[in-house]
């Protein structure tokens, strides 16, 4: 994975597969503690302890189309390369929470990448799922909640290209507000 937003897109797909109706993605940049934390939580069907213990094993997957499953393995590898770690809490019927911690200033920490595009891709392709994205940086906190967006849009679909473009810019602008050091271009967002 080239950047952290791709990991988020990937892990959130697991939540979609687990029939989640609400996915919460939280990013917390903490320069004082030198940590970069990403939490992805869902209310999907969850996993038993046996499965949960094996999910970061690249040779374990519940898929039948192939024999490997490397999404969480790659996330763990990337986190550990920066001196961080991931932990996964899951309960059958309740949901799953994947928390990954990276060392903020570690040279091996991938950049965040196009997070606004990632969030929009997720919400536009899965209109029946609600998503809350919160991002905390040194200048404050930004919260993007599809329930608010859907209420404002009424019967208009989020997947409409003009709306997508608008939301994309909206997220980017808000992220620049909370972290002015970052360039506006989402692809270079670190």
């Amino acid at each position: 994975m080239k950047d952290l937003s791709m990991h988020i897109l990937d892990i959130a797909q697991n939540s979609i597969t687990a029939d989640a109706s609400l996915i919460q993605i939280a990013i917390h940049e903490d320069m004082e503690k030198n940590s970069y934390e990403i939490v992805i939580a869902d209310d999907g069907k969850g996993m038993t302890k046996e499965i949960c213990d094996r999910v970061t094993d690249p040779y374990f997957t519940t898929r039948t189309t192939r024999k490997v499953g490397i999404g969480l393995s790659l996330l763990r590898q990337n986190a550990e390369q920066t001196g961080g770690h991931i932990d996964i809490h899951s309960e059958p019927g309740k949901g799953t929470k994947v928390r990954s911690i990276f060392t903020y200033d570690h040279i091996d920490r991938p950049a965040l990448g196009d997070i606004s595009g990632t969030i929009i891709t997720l919400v536009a392709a899965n209109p029946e799922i609600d998503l809350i994205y919160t991002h905390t940086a040194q200048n404050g906190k930004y919260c993007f909640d599809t329930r608010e967006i859907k209420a404002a849009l009424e019967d208009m679909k989020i997947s409409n290209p003009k709306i997508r473009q608008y939301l994309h810019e909206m997220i980017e602008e808000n992220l620049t507000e909370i972290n002015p050091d970052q360039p506006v271009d989402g692809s270079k967002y670190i």
Partner: protein
Amino acid sequence: MGKVKSLDDLKKMKEEVQSRINLREKSDHPENQVQVKVAMATCGIASGAKEIMDYFINELDKRNIDAIVTQTGCMGYCYAEPTVEITLPGKEPVVFGYVDTKKADEIIEEYIKKGELIDGIIPVTYKTIDE
């Protein structure tokens, strides 16, 4: 930089888009629309499936093609990612492999618009090593 975009602005934007969308015929029957499914599992994402999906969404809109672009899981063709499955109305789905923006453009122009088959199709008879 101007004022940060808000939900109120979004509502205004919605009205604007809505007035335009009504001009184009709205179809609620997916079987009458072109369906584009982009494979977006770990393998697809790592190969750039998100850019391909964005490309399809924007280009199909620009070229006035009524289509639904969604995502799907891994179809088992990890070696050929990014892969997209195109279903034209009344036809069997066709899977294209190694799709970049150039290929995506060709798919739109040749297959979606004219129904002509092009290189890069993963045949349905393809068997994995186990079969």
